[in-house]
């Protein structure tokens, strides 16, 4: 093992070759991913992609309208309406829901989804539903997300559902049409990668920091072509919410999907949820779910080890999630990068972010705070943020908002009085949706505004043209809202 102190990388790369693996076709040890993959193959000709059966298809208003149009144009039906579930999340307003939607184009998209769902007989959690929310928050919440399932959605953060041991990945609109018409997808088998997290995260360090730490190590394209399995004590010790945050960010490392083997935490999370197996089937399903682990002798194409104790709270300084440093660090210097390409990219990012090299992260002042999204908009995230906020007021020049991931999260938070803590501190308390994660509705940054955000992408203009996004955990976002600049939450004085 590497000593992880100081600046050394908290990782050890190990390449395994298949030559080391004994291949007996019938008894070949398999990874979690391979077990789920194999169980869903409808047909596998030798020189073609596999035809994979899809157990659950989630749809929303932005990536589905053209798929339904194509179905109609080609005179095709929907094979299994019972395996498709819809909600509205990407561009719904997060203010008063009793008002008509002011954005006419968004209204048109939402209307199209309604029409399509009613024409094709699809269950829709509409804007006025008590269970509406971000598609990746409501899937698990409703118990639709289950171990061993194949789950797809026209949204890249579908990787979130892998936290339950499902194989879940984002697809494009042509594939949405393909699933609607056939309940299957043509897929080339991805490679496998193990990320083993050794030890547990220190106090004040969250699953989000772990996710950013992993991306920092492997890069934003480090997972390309792979499905990542997260394992080890640092993963087992995470709550289901934390596991979802980790799997959610897999796509930011370029991975096709992230997966975590189901365990007792997974089962107790699911028990009693509306679409989870009922009592008559529960034991049978759990017995099956318990088989969904990577066999001891199974081989991965790539293995990365991370020491959880060495992970600190992270803050991104640039324009992709791999441009990240610990809160105790400084903004990097383009002249100290490894090569020309990195120097250009760093320089460009610093220009866009209006940051000078060597600036201490804790000296960066912020204008806005966004707590929400499918990465960090769950009850546990709001609890963690509220714990920091309690008894404080947000900085004078800061505008901060909390957007719960779903109406269910919102109600639960309100019943615990979290909304009161946030409002008292000066936060806006909104209705559920994607909101400022992607700024398709009215919730956007003004040009030049700097935001501490719990979302997953800090791309140029992601939260509004000219807006500057720093990705952080909910605790770190809350602390920044109070002090007006990034602040190490490990030193926080909780009231």
């Amino acid at each position, binding site marked *: 093992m590497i000593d992880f102190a100081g600046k050394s990388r908290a990782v050890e790369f190990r390449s395994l070759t298949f030559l080391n693996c004994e291949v007996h076709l019938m008894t070949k040890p398999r990874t979690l991913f391979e077990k789920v993959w194999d169980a869903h193959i409808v047909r596998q000709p030798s020189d073609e992609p596999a035809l994979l059966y899809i157990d659950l298809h989630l749809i929303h208003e932005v990536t589905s309208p053209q798929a339904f149009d194509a179905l109609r144009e080609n005179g095709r039906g929907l094979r299994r309406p019972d395996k498709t579930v819809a909600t509205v999340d990407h561009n719904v307003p997060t203010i008063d829901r009793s008002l008509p939607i002011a954005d006419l184009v968004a209204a048109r998209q939402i209307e199209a989804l309604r029409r399509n769902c009613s024409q094709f007989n699809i269950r829709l959690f509409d804007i006025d539903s008590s269970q509406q929310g971000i598609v990746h928050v409501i899937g698990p919440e409703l118990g639709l997300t289950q171990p061993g399932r194949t789950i797809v959605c026209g949204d890249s953060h579908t990787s979130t559902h892998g936290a339950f041991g499902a194989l879940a990945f984002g697809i494009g609109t042509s594939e949405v049409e393909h699933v609607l018409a056939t309940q299957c997808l043509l897929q080339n088998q991805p490679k496998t990668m193990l990320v083993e997290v050794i030890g547990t995260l220190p106090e004040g360090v969250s699953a989000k920091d772990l996710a950013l730490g992993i991306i920092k190590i492997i890069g934003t394209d480090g997972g390309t072509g792979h499905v990542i399995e997260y394992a080890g004590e640092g993963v087992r010790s995470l709550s289901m919410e934390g596991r979802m945050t980790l799997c959610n960010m897999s796509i930011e490392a370029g991975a*096709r999907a992230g997966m975590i083997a189901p365990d007792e935490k997974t089962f107790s999370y699911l028990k009693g949820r509306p679409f989870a197996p009922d009592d008559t089937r529960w034991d049978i399903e759990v017995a099956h779910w318990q088989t969904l682990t990577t066999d001891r002798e199974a081989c991965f194409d790539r293995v990365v080890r991370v020491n959880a104790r060495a992970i600190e709270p992270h803050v991104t300084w640039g324009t992709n999630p791999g441009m990240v440093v610990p809160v105790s660090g400084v903004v990097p210097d383009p002249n100290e990068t490894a090569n020309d390409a990195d120097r250009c990219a760093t320089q460009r990012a610093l220009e866009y972010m209006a940051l000078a090299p060597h600036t201490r992260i804790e000296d960066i002042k912020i204008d806005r705070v966004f707590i929400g999204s499918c990465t960090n908009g769950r009850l546990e995230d709001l609890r963690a943020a509220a714990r920091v906020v309690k008894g404080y007021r947000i900085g004078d020049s800061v505008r901060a908002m909390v957007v719960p991931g779903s109406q269910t999260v919102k109600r639960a938070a309100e019943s615990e009085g979290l909304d009161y803590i946030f409002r008292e501190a000066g936060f806006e308390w909104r209705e559920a949706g994607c909101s400022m994660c992607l700024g398709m509705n009215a919730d956007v940054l003004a040009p030049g505004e700097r935001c501490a955000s719990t979302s997953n992408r800090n791309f140029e*203009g992601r939260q509004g043209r000219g807006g500057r996004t720093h990705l952080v955990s909910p605790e770190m976002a809350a602390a920044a809202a109070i002090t007006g600049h990034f602040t190490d939450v490990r030193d926080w004085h909780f009231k």
Partner: protein
Amino acid sequence: MIPFRIHTGLVAPLDRANVDTDQIIPKQFLKRIERSGFGEFLFYDWRRLPNGEVDPSFPLNQSKYNGTSILITGKNFGCGSSREHAPWALSDYGFRAIIAPSFADIFANNCLKNGLLPVVLEEQEVATIFQRARELNGYQLTVDLERRVVIDRENFLASFPINDFQRECLMAGLDDVGLTLRHDADITAYERHRGH
């Protein structure tokens, strides 16, 4: 889908790595419910200055690259969202092929479904094309899917990987859904066997 066999066209350089889908088509333009009409918003935030005027320094705004149909760009092109609006916008603008050292998975997949060919070449080959596209006027490449090669008139020749199945689908302009529907009996058998 328009079949893709061989295409010759003007090459435009976009010398940036990790170009994400939010840059390819900024999300304020995603609210259309049709597939067409996204081309005019391609790279919108880069093509325009903050005051809305055209930025003359952006390659696609230079007359030299008018009518381009092949884009040469940096690694990990198309990272980010799974939204197919990105390939739609590129196609709608007139691109038929994109050449880069690597592509994000979902994006590359989406391109293939829209008759837009993602061509992976070695860093060194990409660098050569960049240089020629910048320095020469009217620099053209031919992308030959049948032979899996990219060539120009200056003796440049590079081969690129693509699997047989994808190549055949593209060359025939075949629609995946139609292909899969032929296996309806297999799907039904699977459903029955699994108790779906």
